């Protein structure tokens, strides 16, 4: 790739982090005085021998189970933790979206904390003055609250203000933990747009996520960490495939399978409640209104004979581009079997199809942002996905529904097991799917046609 001719903005060589556990704080002091002559601690290696080079404009995704060392790696990358071994070079201003609001002083007002926090992040008084209004308006905080101590803020307001400050410093490198968005409801979407706008501006992003789909969708390289070691590194599809494989193997060993995908926190993940949460008081977001699974004859599909139809009804408030819908068929072990996405297939959910509305995804990708398409998809809409003559083999399957932004990355809603169906077969093929195939007589190579 062309940008590889540039210097890397983040370069780590044999990076490692050892946590030293001391029985008493004073032992730590003794250790500094003693140097290497004697060790007074129990050691835990959280990370070992990580090598990476991230170039300007690249997005690095880190996957791995909880406790695998992802957060430690991110903390090393943004400089809050010193590495025990190896070297780390970063080139440019780093903004860490980890522990948002950690630098806040709860006794001081929002205004004071903006100045305090932004100066911790390296802005001087004049720069903060310039950005002040922008920070407040992005945070969406009521002007009344800005003069109140932040201890009176709700956790949502806290995070919104912290996010607005953290992203106001115009970072070159963005370090993000877990999700590509913060806060809830409307702010979640706006923070996602902000992060994507950094990507579009060619900033470097380092993030860890449980949403493997997101890693594949936006990353240029990926790392899979397991117990502090790099298990796989390279192109996201490869790494994600290996990791998903590992998860599936683990899941088959345990009684309760671990789902490979995690909701973004805004959607109710209760399988029994596919309806949008009734107590949602925030601004309206695109929502799944209804899901209808029509599978053969009363939920029973004869393999290769009956169609599977999934109808998804969606409401989209003004101000949002028409969302896209993802439908995933999962098996009893919650393993993804197959899927279809309206954004992948280039299908617009907008009922009133206008020329160009199919292109919303590309426009956003070019940096136009969501505002440009504001209102483009407002209203109620529905779409039906059809898998004709479904060739899955016998078993019980569930349908997961994702409601996604027009780019198909940000998750508005994830409904697990929105419906289910059963497949029967009248032959003895084994496996999960019957792929189209034919036989040729003869046996050796290409010889004789049937």
């Amino acid at each position, binding site marked *: 790739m062309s940008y590889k001719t540039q210097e890397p903005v983040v370069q780590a060589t044999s990076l490692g982090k050892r*946590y*030293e556990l*001391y029985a008493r*704080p*004073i032992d*730590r*002091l003794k*250790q*500094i005085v003693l140097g290497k002559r004697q060790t007074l601690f129990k050691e835990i290696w959280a990370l070992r021998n990580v090598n990476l080079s991230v170039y300007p404009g690249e997005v690095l995704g880190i996957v791995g189970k909880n406790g695998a060392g992802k957060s430690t790696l991110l903390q090393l990358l*943004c*400089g*809050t*933790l*010193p590495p025990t071994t190896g070297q780390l070079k970063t080139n440019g201003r*780093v903004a*860490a979206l*980890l*522990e948002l609001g*950690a*630098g806040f*002083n709860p*006794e*001081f007002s929002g205004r*004071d904390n903006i*100045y*305090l926090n932004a*100066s*911790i992040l390296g*802005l*001087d*008084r004049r720069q903060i003055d310039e950005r002040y209004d922008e920070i407040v308006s992005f945070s969406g905080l009521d002007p009344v609250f800005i003069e109140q101590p932040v201890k009176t803020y709700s956790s949502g307001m806290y995070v919104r203000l912290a996010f607005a400050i953290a992203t106001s410093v115009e970072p070159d490198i963005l370090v993000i933990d877990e999700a590509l968005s913060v806060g809830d409801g409307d702010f979640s979407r706006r923070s996602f747009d902000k992060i994507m706008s950094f990507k579009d501006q060619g900033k470097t992003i380092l993030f860890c996520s449980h949403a493997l789909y997101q890693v594949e969708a936006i990353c240029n390289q990926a790392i899979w960490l397991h117990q502090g070691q790099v298990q796989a590194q390279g192109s996201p599809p490869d790494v994600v495939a290996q990791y998903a494989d590992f998860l599936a193997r683990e899941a088959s060993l345990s009684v309760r399978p671990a789902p490979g995908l995690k909701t973004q926190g805004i959607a109710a993940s209760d399988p029994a409640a596919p309806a949008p949460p009734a107590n949602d008081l925030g601004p309206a977001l695109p929502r799944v209104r209804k899901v209808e699974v029509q599978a053969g004859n009363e939920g029973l599909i004869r393999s290769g004979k009956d169609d599977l139809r999934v109808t998804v009804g969606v409401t989209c408030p003004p101000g949002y581009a028409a969302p896209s819908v993802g439908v995933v068929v999962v098996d009893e072990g919650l393993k993804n079997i197959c899927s279809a996405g309206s954004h992948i297939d280039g299908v617009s959910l907008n009922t009133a199809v206008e020329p160009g509305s199919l292109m919303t995804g590309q426009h956003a990708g070019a940096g136009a942002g969501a505002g440009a398409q504001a209102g483009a998809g407002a209203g109620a809409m529905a779409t039906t996905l059809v898998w004709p003559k479904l060739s899955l083999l016998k078993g019980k399957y569930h349908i997961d529904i994702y409601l996604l932004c027009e780019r198909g990355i940000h998750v508005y809603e994830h409904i697990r097991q929105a419906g289910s169906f059963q497949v029967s077969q009248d032959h003895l093929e084994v496996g999960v799917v019957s792929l189209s195939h034919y036989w040729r007589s003869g046996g050796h190579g290409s010889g004789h046609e049937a």
Partner: protein
Amino acid sequence: MAIHFFVAGLRNLARHKTLIKQFSIRDLQARTRATFLGLGWLILAPLILLAIYTTVFGQVFPSRWASSHQTNAEFALILFTGLILFQFFSEAVARSPSLVVSQPSYVTKVVFPLEILALASALAGSVQFFASLAMLCIGLAWAGLVHWTWILAPVVIAPLFLLALGVCWLLSALGVFVRDMAQVIGMVLTGLLFLSPIFYPLDALTPALQAAILWNPLTIPIEALRDVLIWGRIPSLNLLAVYWLVAAAVAALGLTVFNGLRQGFADVI
């Protein structure tokens, strides 16, 4: 290695001027926030202390000054000169062990130049000191004790500030590892209060005791400040020069030790 810690510390201090200013102001606000009198305490607190000490050492246990030919007002001014220096030093030092410990998120969650905490605390404390000093000068002017030597006051005060800063750095770093620091410091400070020429003149002591009490870090600045403000004389320049050297050395040592130990902060906070 040590040089590196010192240079890195100085560079951080130079680079984070905005932050130091912000933190000093916040520190000052935090002391007075949500109090009814607010900044009024800057004036009131030292006056109340002065009233107590003047009563105790002027009337209850008359000190050497009080029993000689000074009036009550003059005695109060002499006492106040020593007292405000002690107040500044003791407040800065007493707060230092908890400076870093009380800010865990600055240690583990954000990239933060921790060395500015001690500086901001000392600067905030010096605002209180200067408010008291202004009151002292008003009192002296009212008593008719105005001297040209007043212009030397900064030369006398500055090294005490350096010394306090150095001690702050040392103690705030050690306080992370040795949590009983706060208890010890309270006692040491009480010792320093009574073993300095605050309540009695230095020349009231035997020569041996005088020599011993010179080791109290407050003795030289107290005597020198009285010389320039009250008696209108030039203080002992030799002693002052030595004091400057020692104070600068302690400040440099404090910064160096602080930066040397900070690698261990995150492991125990």
